[in-house]
């Protein structure tokens, strides 16, 4: 009986999530479509002639300080993005981004990039994950990380996954964002005192622009179709399961 109630509530929750997923998928489609528009329309700026405002730059990533390393993974990098997801929680229990002082450089010059707010779209060799089941002995690094960041105890029911993305010194990147005057400009550095920030829709990728455009082809049509179908199906299931639908019959 208890199982039946749990299943019933689970189905209602699942149907409601389907509605939210459908709406989110439509929003995601528009977001990816805006990225495709930026990739197509915003010219690649030459780094010795970059001007204030919206800009796209392509060049090698270079960290001005020592490299950092991805926690829980043996990966040296100049920046990383890490999230810890527990099977018992919908939202990540921990998120962090670490970056050295970064520049995108070309033969013409360089520009500092402030990674706060940038969305990453990285190739498979720059992403990874570490799964720790509740019954596993967690690796030493995972234990130390959990203690350092005061993560909830896994116990015997909480599976944990560390998902990370990172970039290495010298990686060729495409970055789209907004160029602003750099408040950290070094006096006498002999370069333009500007910084590339994320702005509203900033994203950074180590894929080629052709690949990024190919991945975003028909993305809006696909997302809206999937979103509408899943959302409508979810709503139908929710109304039926909660008994609201029967009021209409």
């Amino acid at each position: 009986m208890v199982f039946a109630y749990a299943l019933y509530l689970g189905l209602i929750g699942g149907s409601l999530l389907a509605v939210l997923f459908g709406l989110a998928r439509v929003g995601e489609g528009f977001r990816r479509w805006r990225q495709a528009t930026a990739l197509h329309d915003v010219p690649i700026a030459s780094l010795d002639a970059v001007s204030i405002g919206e800009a796209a730059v392509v060049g090698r990533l270079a960290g001005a300080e020592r490299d950092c390393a991805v926690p829980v993974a043996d990966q040296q990098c100049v920046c990383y993005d890490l999230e810890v997801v527990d099977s018992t929680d919908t939202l990540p229990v921990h998120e962090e981004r670490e970056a050295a002082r970064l520049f995108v450089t070309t033969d013409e010059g360089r520009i500092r990039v402030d990674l706060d707010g940038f969305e990453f779209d990285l190739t498979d060799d720059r992403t990874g994950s570490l799964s720790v089941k509740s019954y596993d002995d967690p690796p030493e690094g995972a234990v130390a990380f959990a203690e350092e960041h005061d993560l909830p105890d896994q116990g015997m029911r909480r599976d944990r996954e560390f998902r990370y993305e990172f970039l290495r010194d010298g990686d060729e990147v495409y970055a789209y964002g907004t160029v602003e005057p750099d408040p950290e400009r070094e006096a006498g550095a002999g370069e333009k005192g500007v910084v590339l920030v994320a702005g509203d829709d900033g994203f950074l990728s180590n894929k080629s622009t052709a690949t990024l455009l190919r991945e975003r082809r028909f993305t809006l049509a696909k997302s809206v179709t999937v979103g509408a179908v899943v959302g409508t199906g979810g709503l139908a299931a929710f109304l039926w399961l909660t008994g609201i639908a029967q009021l209409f019959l």
Partner: protein
Amino acid sequence: MVDFATVVLGFGLVVLAYSVVKYLGSAHNNVVEAHERCEKAWSDIDVLLERRAGEVGDLIDLTREHVSHEQDVLEDVIEARERVVEASNPDEAADAVVALRSSLDEVYDLSTEYPDLASSERFDELSDSIRTIEQRIENRREQYNDAVRAYNTRLKRVPERFVADYYGYTSKTPFVASASAREGVDVGDRLSLSDED
């Protein structure tokens, strides 16, 4: 009373209608933004053209101090500089830039004939500054042309094409010198004229 199917299908239709309206709105924004990118890219070039005109003005004054009798060359530079300053669109600017570059080459050539001019520190500074600005103009010209290419492509796409027709957006011309501007410059003739003087 509204039945169940109507409610569910109505939800799906609302999602689709929202998507279509937002898509059309975004199409309009895309045209406007592409147009603004062209305007901004052009204004970036315009700023550099003005800066170069200022540096060229200083270079003319300096050259006049040393070789005041080379009136033909100086008048050419002054005239070309004025054309650049007065240029109000990429077409005019492109032709004027070619003429100015040619005239400046003649001034640089004069420095080989007049050691006083060549040894002037200020002459070196101005020459370097003008060359740096020209390189930046060249880079921004490429960006402007990329922006114009993207804008013109967008005007040919559906639904942006209908939006552009409705709001009166027309295609733009890239910043390239016309063939007549290039053919019209004969540096060799001018130099031989100055040799005769």
